[in-house]
């Protein structure tokens, strides 16, 4: 009789242990996926991404590099470089993340910010083709100014900054173009209202203010 009474109890104990084990396993998977997203890796490409993770010597920001970040000129007309020290690692995507973070942080000179401070980066992925996918938070839709001129400054501030050779990781590929996402989706007419961002964007010098030794296509 007592053995019969113990069997359901043991079953319950085993079931509870199994359930706990499953929960811990699930939690670990979620943690791993979020860490991969934070590192700029696509969690769905887990088998390819995993071997890259242990490269701690490459990913550690051992040095900084002086890189121009492109902000708007005080008259809001063109882009001007503000040279800033950016944490440099062996991974291009990490360097781009650092540069974009500083760009969102805003200028330290009299230049004008081009990205609202409320805007965050949801993710950043670098494809083998050199196309960098940057996923902005939806604060861009609510907080950014919507005119063709301001949207152009935003787009080329990001593209001209991130596609610089100075942000290329030593043994990594360089950024050739930038594809914009907002809230994980291709941008709709909410933002940008005027510019077409359905495809990747390559750097364009026409938005740069001419500097000594530099050039501008400003008409």
């Amino acid at each position, binding site marked *: 009789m007592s053995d019969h009474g113990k069997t359901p109890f043991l079953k319950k104990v085993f079931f509870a242990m199994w359930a706990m084990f499953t929960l811990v396993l699930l939690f670990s998977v979620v943690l791993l996926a979020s860490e991969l997203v934070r590192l700029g890796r696509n969690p769905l490409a887990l088998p390819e991404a995993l071997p890259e993770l242990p490269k701690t010597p490459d990913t550690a920001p051992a040095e900084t590099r002086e890189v121009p970040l492109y902000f*708007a000129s*005080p*008259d*809001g*007309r063109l882009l001007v470089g503000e040279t800033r020290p950016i944490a440099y690692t062996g991974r291009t995507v990490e360097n781009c993340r650092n540069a974009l973070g500083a760009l969102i942080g805003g200028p330290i000179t009299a230049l*004008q*910010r*081009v990205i609202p401070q409320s805007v965050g980066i949801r993710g950043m992925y670098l494809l083998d083709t050199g*196309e960098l996918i940057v996923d902005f938070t939806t604060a861009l839709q609510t907080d950014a*100014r*919507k*005119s*063709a*001129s*301001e949207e*152009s400054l935003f787009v080329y501030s990001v593209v001209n900054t991130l596609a610089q050779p100075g942000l290329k990781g030593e043994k990594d590929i360089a950024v050739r173009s930038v*594809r914009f996402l907002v809230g994980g989706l291709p941008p709709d*007419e909410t933002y940008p*209202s*005027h*510019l*077409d*961002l*359905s*495809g*990747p964007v*390559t750097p*364009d010098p*026409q*938005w740069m203010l001419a500097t000594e030794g530099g050039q501008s296509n*400003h*008409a």
Partner: protein
Amino acid sequence: MSPSSTSAAPPAPAAQPSSVEPAPRWVVVLDAGHGGDNAGESGPAGTLEKNVTLSVAAKAAALLEGSCQVVMTRTEDKSLGATARASAANSGRGSVFVSIHTGSSASPTANGIQIFVPSDTITTPAGRSIPTASARAGADASKALAQQLAKALAQSTSATSRGVHTVACRVFQGLNMPGVLVEIGFISNATEESLLADDGYQGKIAAGIASGVQAFLASGN
């Protein structure tokens, strides 16, 4: 520049059934930016971009109607997507397309008139931008239109010219005629906002747009 069936120049004016009919007319498409739920940007005093653009487009239409056929993408305060605007221009057999907007900037001193034209590339389904002969021809014609508009607007308004820039705008997608997007002044600048809201100044901008379009069309004859 002579009219042709490509996007390099304004398409030939609509032919009339017989030689005794009035001369063929160019079709000018005027696109008042924003509308309805989409008010566009607003100025420090509350002036709405959608109202300024509609008012200026209507004034420019009145000036052009004697010499051209005018198609307005909207004549009332209604919302319209970019694709619908380009479609209206194409189905109206437009010779030129002028999209009217205001500028807005975080810089309170930003002012002047800026014009945007399409690039000479097309985007492939894979997302690559490649140059094509027809895109180049369309871009060249759009640039010529933009330059005529910049010149005429500088004369009619005395506003600062911020130049012509090549950029992919939503309203250019699928457009089969020379097209420009004109920012007629900065609504974020308090001084320019009051000008943009002024009936007389709107008339000056409209006169500049009409005169620039006419100069471009005349250059094709």
